[in-house]
Every structure is written in structure tokens, then in C-alpha cells.
């Protein structure tokens, strides 16, 4: 089974909760973890991974380059670039901003001088594999700074994870998705069997989780909700009301607990670092519900 954990908003505790759930499910199931936040991967850190066993470069991205020797400075490339990535430098040369180029090659197609603008393949990032000290493997990715295609990295991560699942006879893939609703999240949610949404009771988090839920609905996946930092905003009932109105079962509520940021500094799942904390008690209950309702159900 493939379970994706998403939140729409960053910083609501998605990776902390994922790390603790992995810790709690590892003894009963054969798992693989996928950190699908290729722009800010953190799950490996939270699971204490320091050495990556295998690293593969992803050379998918393309970047346009302009040869100043043959360029006739007509400016058509700059005019036609759909993302306004071409500018004129101080010497009067047209230059592609490599940190914003999407690699669509429109500039190359409209350029009247053949060979002046070329589309070059560049590295967009790396995908890595490690075995955590808990026994299960993790796949993670890191997009290079300023590169496009983070969604493609995530797709490749999931393909690699699927192969390992087959080779090692693993049962479940747990995917920790990125913030937002864009390509990385769509690549994370697509193909999953179940989505677990994490939200905190704030208007901003509600707004973002509603957006990611629409993406989940698009893939017709059943969704569940975990309310994190459940007590930080007493009186805010809209998150629970929304879940109820959409028929999204709430798997549990986790109170704000300073042991969570502390455990992050220790690079351990909070349920391992502070097993007696109130957050740990709550996540254990959530894990039981997940086993019962989602995995066995």
C-alpha cells in the first residue's frame, strides 16, 4: 500500500509526524519511506540518516544558453520567452538566467541564427538511498538550487522505491510530500492508495489543507486527517467542521508539545526521543487507528 502524507502548508509538523509514524509502524510492517520534498528534504535528518549508501544524479533539467559570438542581438528570444528569463547584461549581450529558465526552448526555436541558442542538459539534483537505523530504507532527493523539475525528481524517487519494494518484498510505501499543491505534491499524491492530511487549527493551515484535499480528490483517493498542535488555537473549530462536512475521518489530535522541536534537534522521531510526552501518547493512538482503519481495513 502507498500512503502519502500531505499538508499543503509547510511547518505544520508533517515530517515530524511521518518520522514518528514510521517508527511506530516499523515493527509490524515492512516499510519504505520516501521524502518527496525535494526542495527541502528533512525526513532523512529526522530519522538520523548521516550516510547515503547510493546516490544518483538526475540529469533531466534543460537550460537554454546563448552564444554571444554568433548572436545578432535582435532580442526576439527575450520577447518570446514565456517566463521572462532572458535579460541583457552590462556588455549588451542577451543572457539566459539559468536560475529561472524552465528549459522550454522557445528562445532556441525563434532565434533566427541557427546554433546560437542551444538547450543543454544540466543536473537538476540527486536522488539518494539509505537504510535507516530502524531497518527500513529511505529514498530522498535534493533539487539543486534554482532548478526546475522537482516533480520529476519525486516521480523518479517513487519509481526507485517501487523497485526496492519488489526486490525486498516490502509492503508499504510512506511518502512525505512537499508543501504546496504543485508538481512535487501531484507527483507525491498520484498513485497513492490513501492520503493522510496534517493540519493545525489555524486559518492559514485550513486554507492550505483544503487546497491539497482538492488535489487528493482529483486522484479519487480516500483521505484522513491528523490535527497537529491541536490546542494552540482554542475556539477555532473550522478545521474540524470542514473535515466533518467533507466526510474526512480524523485519525487523532496531537497537542502542541515542546518535545517535538527538541526531538528535531536530536534528529530522532519524537516518539523515540520522548516516549512519555503527551505528543507521543497521542501519536501512538493515531498509529493504532492507522493500523486498524487504513492498513488492515
Amino acid at each position, binding site marked *: 500500500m502507498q500512503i502519502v502524507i500531505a499538508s499543503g*502548508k509547510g511547518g505544520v509538523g508533517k515530517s515530524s509526524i511521518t518520522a514518528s509514524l514510521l517508527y511506530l509502524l516499523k515493527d509490524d510492517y515492512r516499510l519504505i519511506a520516501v521524502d518527496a520534498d525535494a526542495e527541502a528534504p528533512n525526513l532523512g535528518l529526522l530519522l538520523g540518516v548521516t550516510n547515503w549508501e547510493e546516490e544518483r544524479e538526475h540529469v533531466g533539467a534543460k537550460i537554454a544558453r546563448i552564444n554571444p559570438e554568433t548572436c545578432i542581438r535582435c532580442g526576439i528570444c527575450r520577447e518570446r520567452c514565456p517566463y521572462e528569463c532572458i535579460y541583457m547584461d552590462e556588455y549588451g549581450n542577451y543572457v539566459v538566467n539559468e536560475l529561472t529558465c524552465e528549459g522550454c526552448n522557445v528562445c532556441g526555436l525563434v532565434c533566427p541564427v541557427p546554433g546560437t541558442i542551444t538547450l543543454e542538459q544540466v543536473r537538476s539534483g540527486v536522488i539518494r538511498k539509505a537504510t535507516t537505523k530502524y531497518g527500513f530504507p529511505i529514498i530522498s532527493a535534493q533539487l539543486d*538550487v534554482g532548478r526546475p523539475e522537482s516533480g520529476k525528481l519525486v516521480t523518479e524517487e517513487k519509481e526507485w522505491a517501487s523497485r526496492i519494494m519488489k526486490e525486498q518484498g516490502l509492503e508499504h510505501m510512506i511518502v512525505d510530500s512537499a508543501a504546496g499543491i*504543485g508538481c512535487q505534491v501531484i507527483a507525491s499524491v498520484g498513485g497513492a492508495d490513501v492520503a493522510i492530511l496534517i493540519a493545525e487549527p489555524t486559518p492559514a493551515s485550513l486554507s492550505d489543507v483544503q487546497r491539497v484535499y482538492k488535489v487528493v480528490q482529483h486522484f479519487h483517493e480516500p483521505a484522513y486527517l491528523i490535527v497537529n498542535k491541536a490546542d494552540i488555537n482554542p475556539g477555532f473549530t473550522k478545521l474540524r467542521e470542514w473535515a466533518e462536512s467533507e466526510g474526512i475521518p480524523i485519525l487523532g489530535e496531537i497537542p502542541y508539545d515542546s518535545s517535538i*522541536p527538541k526531538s528535531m*534537534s536530536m534528529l530522532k522521531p519524537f516518539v523515540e526521543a520522548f516516549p512519555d510526552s503527551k505528543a507521543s501518547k497521542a501519536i501512538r493512538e493515531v498509529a493504532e487507528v492507522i493500523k486498524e482503519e487504513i492498513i488492515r481495513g
Partner: protein
Amino acid sequence: MQIAVSGGKGGTGKSTVAVNIAVELAKKFKLVLADLDVEAPNDHILLGVNLGNEREVHQFMPKFDYSKCIKCRKCAEVCEEHAIVTLKDGTPFLMPTLCSGCRACEIVCPVPGAIQEGSRLIGHTYVTETPYNFILVTGKLREGEERSMPLVVATKRRVKELSWDLLIVDTAAGTGNTVSKAIEGSELLIAVTEPTPLGIHDTELILELGRLMEIETWVVINRSDLGDVNEVYRRAERYGAEVIAEIPYSENIVKTYVSGTPIVTTNFPEAEIFRKIADKIYNFLR
């Protein structure tokens, strides 16, 4: 003038910093705040305003006129997104969600009129008056759309229609090319970070982006009591970035955050921290 607030990791407090310095700096500049976190825009929620002046953002999509198409497959060959697939006989079909609207297919099509102008709604932009004497411009990607770059570009274009002396952009999380697109044109980059190992890891990436873009970069350490701030100082120094503020974890900040009242408009002592950040920016820009 333009400055950017970014942070690498999600949830570090970018929007809190952006909104509060906007309220403060709007006292000195004719100001626009642009929320370019188009996948999860929240500045309006933090400001307690409803989004106004909605405008649709449409993106080009090829529409094939099969009576004219000569099935040469050029459109499919040139599509870097592989959004156009062809049947055995060369008949092209579009997979709409993969299309980035770049028009490469239209450019190479040898038959006039075989590819016609189609379009798809990919999101919205908004221009909202705030009670704090500045205008908020927001980009919001439509759910199910994969590509945020066109919406970031459209939102920045809408910003250009307005007049302002200072533009503050609030970016998405991460350090991919949509974040650099948002930051582009800034004279100052403010990286909001947390002193946790995770926060520090991501901060390094945003500092690297600032270095590559050759933009003066400052660091604001949020929730500064939740980890080792010295580590942040060390990393900042390595990139020649100055740490300009430490914001401790504060229930008052959480309270004002959830109530849609920027903390600089309150009497809470923490308001002073944001005012000092704004002062420092003011002195830098002057």
C-alpha cells in the same frame, strides 16, 4: 525598489515576517506586498483581509485543427514537457496538465492555422487593499495545476501595473526556480530560518541561492530559543550574510498570527523586534 522574504523550508515564519515588515514599512514607502507563494498563499489571512479584484490567469494551450494537421509530429518532438503524444499515423493529442503554455509547438508547426489558440484557466491573481496603507497582490494557483512558474510570472506582471516605491515579495518554500523567479529583481533577500538542524540545512540552500543571484542576504532567526543559534550565525557568516534579528517562540505571535492581526499593530513587546527589522531595512534602502 524590491526586497524578498524567503526561507528555504516551509513554516519558518516567512509570511509572518513579510506581513509585519510590510505594515511597518508602509508608513515610510508607497508599498506593495506580493504573495508569490502561489501554491499556498496566506498573507491575506495573516492580514485579516478578503482577497479582492480577482483576475483569471489563462495559459496558452494548443488546439489542433485536424483538418489542417499534416501529422508531421514536429509539435510533439519539440515539446520539452512531453505534453503532446502522437498516434501511429502522427495525429497529435495534448495532455493538458503537462502543457506549460510555452508555444514551442505553435512556433514549429509548418501549417498556418493547424494549431489554434486554446487556453486553460491555471489560477488567479488578486489586488487587495489592506487597512495598513499598502496593497497586497496575491497569486493563487488552481488546484490540480502542476506548474507554479506561469502564475508567479503573471503575479509579478500584475504588480508592475501598480505604482509603488517599495515592493516586498514573499516567496514559496524551497529553492527551486520558482523561488528564484520570485526573488529576481530584489536588492535584498531576507532569509527567515529556524535554529534547528533541519532549519539550518535549508537555510544553507537559500543562502546559496542568494549568493548565486548576487543579492545581499540577511538572516532572521525565528523561534530562536528552540535550538542552537550559534550554528545559524556560523553558516550565515560563511555566506557573508548578516543575522539581523532573533525572534523567540512567543504565544503572542501565535495569537496574533491566528487572529489575522499583524503583531506590529499591537502593544505586545514582540512588536518591537519586527519594528527593528523594518528600521534596519529602511536604513539599508535609504
